């Protein structure tokens, strides 16, 4: 059956995500269909009902329920998976907080799609960026291979640091585009990813209460033990994300050792060694940026690309190192934090503050609602930013938009 053979296969991004979940031996899947995520759910239900994946597939009545099912299944010790996009992800918002707050290693594939109003089913990254502050780790894939690899790694990361992971990939550009994908053998994945061991488990033999009302201050429980207050619990989640970078890198390194594709860095770097101009992008746009960088090099500019693989936790110190030599940084965002700028641009600026870096930074908002963005437009935006470099104007208050207004 397609998807269960090891070796190179031609898979679209949704299929790659489903194969990744299957190879991770997920035990409970709950999902509600939405364009462009639907084929993920169809593939998985086919594996389950065809007897090719020993798991329960729950065709829930909404995304909110999908994450509720995953969270309780995770609490009783099952490895869980869900997927969504756009409005579906927005509808999960409450449960996203809840899953992260409960420290459950649920994995969610987010097939990036624009969000309404007005309705639009095409790609941008506003959906997952809007969920930035829910306490989930966010990984962005540039290719279908990275989707499959990231899903498998996500389980190992999440089950080590007990923080849920969202694996994000661009709708249509990846979800519905076929590419060669090297599918690892189930045996190799088993040796990489041991069965899930929950940190605590709901068990009738040892009853527990979960997520009770927790007061602001620490409090002594009935057994006389001093328990954390709400704020300490929040601190621990932040601490887990702050420290997650090490796990993400070590899991990626181990994966590389076994499968020959290393994910030891939270960033993707292209031609940065001598680059004085750096293009920053996330997801499939980071691939497009490589073409733009090559074109600009042909024109005589020293250009490199910094792809953000992990957006949460944000790899601040890695970014500082990568941009140390840059004189001009051009950040492309497929999202907008209204009234401010693109979300990744804010992160880059915040990372560089106080680092001694003195690069000129320009931000472009591109590709919203599926607006096509080509390498030559990226190159054009870089060219347009060159005068700022000469003038030494470090910062623009607001981003430029590549659109018809």
């Amino acid at each position: 059956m397609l998807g269960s053979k090891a070796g190179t296969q031609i898979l679209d991004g949704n299929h790659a995500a489903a194969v990744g979940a299957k190879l991770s031996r997920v035990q409970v899947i709950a999902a509600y269909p939405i364009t462009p995520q639907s084929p993920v759910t169809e593939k998985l239900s086919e594996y389950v009902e065809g007897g090719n994946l020993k798991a329960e597939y729950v065709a829930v009545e909404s995304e909110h329920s999908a994450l509720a099912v995953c969270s309780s299944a995770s609490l009783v010790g099952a490895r869980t998976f869900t997927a969504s996009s756009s409005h579906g992800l927005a509808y999960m918002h409450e449960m996203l907080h809840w899953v992260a707050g409960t420290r459950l290693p649920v994995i969610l594939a987010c097939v990036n799609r624009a969000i309404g109003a007005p309705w639009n089913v095409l790609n941008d990254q506003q959906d997952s960026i809007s969920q930035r502050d829910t306490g989930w780790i966010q990984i962005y894939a540039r290719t279908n291979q990275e989707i499959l690899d990231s899903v498998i790694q996500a389980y190992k990361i999440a089950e080590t640091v007990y923080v849920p992971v969202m694996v994000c990939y661009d709708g249509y550009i990846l979800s519905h585009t076929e590419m060669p994908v090297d599918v690892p053998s189930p045996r190799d994945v088993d040796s990489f990813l041991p069965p899930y061991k929950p940190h605590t488990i709901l068990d009738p033999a040892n009853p527990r209460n979960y997520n009770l009302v927790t007061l602001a201050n620490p409090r002594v429980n009935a057994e006389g033990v001093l328990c954390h207050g709400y704020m300490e619990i929040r601190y621990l989640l932040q601490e887990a994300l702050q420290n997650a970078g090490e796990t993400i890198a070590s899991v990626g390194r181990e994966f590389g050792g076994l499968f020959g594709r290393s994910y030891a860095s939270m960033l993707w770097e292209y031609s940065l060694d001598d680059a004085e101009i750096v293009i920053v992008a996330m997801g499939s746009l980071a691939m497009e940026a490589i073409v733009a960088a090559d074109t600009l090099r042909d024109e005589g500019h020293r250009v490199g690309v910094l792809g953000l693989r992990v957006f949460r936790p944000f790899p601040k110190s890695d970014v500082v190192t990568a941009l140390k030599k840059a004189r001009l940084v051009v950040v492309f965002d497929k999202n907008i934090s209204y009234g401010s700028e693109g979300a990744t641009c804010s992160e880059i600026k915040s990372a560089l503050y106080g680092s001694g870096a003195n690069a000129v930074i320009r931000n472009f908002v591109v590709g919203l609602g599926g607006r096509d963005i080509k390498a030559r437009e990226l190159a054009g935006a870089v060219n347009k930013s060159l005068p700022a470099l000469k003038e030494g104007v470090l910062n623009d208050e607001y981003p430029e938009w590549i659109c018809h207004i």
Partner: protein
Amino acid sequence: MTSTTKVEERTLDSLLRLDRLPHIWCPGCGIGPAVGCFIRAVEDSGLNPDKIALVSGIGCTGRVAGYVKLDSFHTTHGRALPFATGLNLGNPDLNVVVFSGDGDLLAIGGNHLIHAARRNMDMTIICLNNFNYGMTGGQMGPTTPLDARSNTSPYGNIEYPFNVPYLVAASGATYVARWTVLHARQLEWSIAEAMIKPGFSFIEVLGPCPTLYGRMNKQPKGMDTMHHYQEKSVVKNGADPKDVGITAEGPIVVGKFVDIERPTFWEQCKLVIDRAQAKKNE
């Protein structure tokens, strides 16, 4: 001598946004005929189209809101009823119609459906049931019959579906009917009757989805499903809603099942305001 019957010409153009055509629906889809019945029902009812507002959720059926030349509102998935409730309470003179799919109204929007019925909101719901989520590619949902195939139940659905008229009747709807799009006349009259009647009126309309549900269930053409309706439908006005559940094999009980009187939410509002005012004036 041959006698000729004069056929009254009726055109649907007056209430369609012709500039939006062609529509997105597949050949053989049941949504178009249901829209035809709705538009003729608006004409039959004698209601002023300027006082009618149509609300849809999301789905192939949800597209209806974009094609009718009425004040219309294409809302988010599952939330047609809360939007309609707002319209109804903001302007009680409006005749509010919700035209949406089975998935929209019964899956993600199921909670709103039972509560709008319970309150007896003054609105008419036309629920096009094609037994699956059409727009997203033919996945099973809460109306998919047991054992029927879909893209998320490739070996047959293991879940029992809702008996929709029973659900809405139990929730408090004062008018409940079910027709297929083959029953074009009855459907048209039923919609007109429901729109004129105050309170929560619900009409389940069975319509083919040949592209997805039909293809996966041995009815690859719209006409196959129409034949199925023809063979399996039994008209039973006044049937007890609990007996009208649908199975993949049929029978399909159609007819008007509930037509009762109960104060609407708005009437209850007025009552309580009057009571409070009277107390104040005592």
